[in-house]
């Protein structure tokens, strides 16, 4: 198919749905949830009712099985209203993707369907206190005992953990084997031995919840193992390969909101007798912000398109996530600068955007790691 940047009518409708939801349900609560750290369950429930959750679950299990590009369109709209809520909405996609990719038909039936027939949350539990970037070195142990495994360890910074009914947990059957020992499990919340730490108090994205999950000889039946022993690392990486791009779209949404606020403000606010937008120093800032935003969006679209075409997109998805999140930080920073003192005030929306954007540089693979991946992928072409 030739390249086209025209969205289909269907894509515009999905975008319209997301934007309506963002405007009506998310925007009015964004500031309050940011201030109080409240987890707006009613918003997530409504998102589920409208089909805006579990976008990646195939239609045969009751999901919508949307192409990644469509998922990105939706994500950008949601994130333009609230990054934190968007993270919590996307968390299900992240948590269910290992089941999507690595589960047997029976497991998919058993685990995915309930998420589409009622409102439920799931969490992806990879990161550990001892290290997030070096996932191959994770310490959580899985010890085989008859027809089950006993899981012991700690997973930290787990999005939606307090509310989730199920965790996809990555643990090692043999630390000696490093990557080759890592195995993925589906752990129901009510499993004895599973406990939660307190909710983290975060810089940004405060409408989402984050907590530590502790596993203390949590018994998980063999039927809950995704794939074989030692296949977990690949599964985690394949999962992140496909969820990285929406993080780029999430950053684009936040950046778009910042740029729009800044543009309106620059036209309204006057100094030295003219709207500040007419000062070249402000205009060139806006010029750069627009470039960064447009480039970020195109990179996420490209990456999503490649995934949808079944092409390998490790490099592109890392570029999209890394560039879009770095750009979002810069755009939000400049937006605050354009707002001057007001930008620094909690009453104005832009400082929240900066705090929300920051997370995009850290989670789902910190940007330093993305750069390593990008370089490695690129250099392969020469060796």
């Amino acid at each position, binding site marked *: 198919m030739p390249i086209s940047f025209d969205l289909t009518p269907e894509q515009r409708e999905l975008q319209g749905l997301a934007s309506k939801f963002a405007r009506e349900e998310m925007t009015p609560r964004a500031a309050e949830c940011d201030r109080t750290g409240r987890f707006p369950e009613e918003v997530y429930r409504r998102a589920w009712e409208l089909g805006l959750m579990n976008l990646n679950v195939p239609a045969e299990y009751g999901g919508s099985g949307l192409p990644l590009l469509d998922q990105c369109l939706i994500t950008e709209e949601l994130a333009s209203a609230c990054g934190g809520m968007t993270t919590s909405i996307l968390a299900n996609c992240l948590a269910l993707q290992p089941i999507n990719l690595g589960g047997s038909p029976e497991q998919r039936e058993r685990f995915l369907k309930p998420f589409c027939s009622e409102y439920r949350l799931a969490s992806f539990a990879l990161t550990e206190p001892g290290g997030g970037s070096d996932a191959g070195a994770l310490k959580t142990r899985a010890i085989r005992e008859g027809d089950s495994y006993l899981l012991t360890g700690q997973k930290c910074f787990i999005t939606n953990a307090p509310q989730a009914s199920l965790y996809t947990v990555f643990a090692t059957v043999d630390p000696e084997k490093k990557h080759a020992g890592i195995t993925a499990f589906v752990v129901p919340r009510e499993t004895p031995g599973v406990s939660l730490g307190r909710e983290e108090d975060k810089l940004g994205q405060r409408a989402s919840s984050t907590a530590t999950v502790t596993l203390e000889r949590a018994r998980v039946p063999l039927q809950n193992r995704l794939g074989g022993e030692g296949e977990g690392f690949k599964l985690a990486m394949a999962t992140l390969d496909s969820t990285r791009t929406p993080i780029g779209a999430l950053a684009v949404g936040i950046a778009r909101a910042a740029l729009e606020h800044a543009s309106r403000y620059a036209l*309204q*606010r*006057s100094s030295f007798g003219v709207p500040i937008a007419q000062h070249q120093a402000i205009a060139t800032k806006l010029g750069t912000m627009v470039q960064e935003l447009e480039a970020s969006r195109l990179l996420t679209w490209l990456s999503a398109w490649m995934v949808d075409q079944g092409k390998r997109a490790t490099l592109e998805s890392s570029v999209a996530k890394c560039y879009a999140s770095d750009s979002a930080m810069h755009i939000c920073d400049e937006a605050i600068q354009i707002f001057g003192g*007001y930008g620094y005030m909690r*009453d*104005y929306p832009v400082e929240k955007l900066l705090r929300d954007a920051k997370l995009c540089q850290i989670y789902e693979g910190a940007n330093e790691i993305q750069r390593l991946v990008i370089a490695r992928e690129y250099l392969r072409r020469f060796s």
Partner: protein
Amino acid sequence: MSPTALVLADPRSPLGIRATLEALGAAEVLLAHHGGGKLVLGLLGHSLGALRETAAGWGADEVLLLDDARLAVFQAETYAWAAETIVKRLSSPTVVVLPGSTLGRELVGRLSARLRGGGTSEALELDLEDTGGIRVRRPLFGGKASETVSLPAPAVVSLRANAFAPPEPPRPSRVVPVLLPDPGAGSAGAHLLERLPVPVSDTPPLTQAPVVVSGGRGLHGPENWPLLEDLARALGAGLGASRAVVDAGWRPASEQVGQTGSSVSPQLYVAVGISGAIQHLVGMSSSRCIVAINTDPSAPIFKVADYGIVGDALVLLPPLTEAVRRVRAGVVP
């Protein structure tokens, strides 16, 4: 040939009668601009009783009276048919001017289709064209813009309520009874089963209100808000506030208008004792018409306002409320 203007009355309510008078006033001016013509009022209904005499004093040259059981309940279908019967009797060219009440606003579509002429609603200005058509200016996009259209004859327009003055001074008219032909138009139509009383409306929510009245620190304290509330009630307006008074605890945060409050864009925004800080202005400057009341003639609010009164709000509010009450008997949606 000098033109004829036909106005159809809406005698069902005081508001309808006022709208009818406005239509007569508009039609009279329209004809006067063209060197005169005949102004005819069509009075349609059943068991009209004393209304026959009253309507004769509204200022038309002639009142055509159609008192018929089939017109007992207003139905666009039968009323359009009856109106057509009248139009056929009149010497053309004829323009039909309908009141800005629900009757006129409903009938305009049906009657213009029936007469196979041009039609439009919510007219703010009218001008007769030489062809017998009318040129109409009317608002659109919620008053954010206006359009001027030329309607081919025979033209039918309904007016915007409150946009025209009644005829002055009204003179007595000749009353001519008209009989409707049998059989009537269309189906047996509707039966009126019940009439419910006019509901008393609360003040509308701020962001949807067609009129917003906001108060600032210039009101000097929460104890003076009843003055503002009276004005809001008279205008059917929502209540707003500046942040300064919200911060002072005089008013709830839900009323704050501006950058960190609600953005409003009503037809009319009345800022009382508000200085007009930029953070306030961004939340209301897209209002169609802005009025400011402030003691300080150099207050920035006067730069964005359309009309202003320099003076003490506490003194100005009561007579203003009174004056508004006099011209607004109620609100038509």
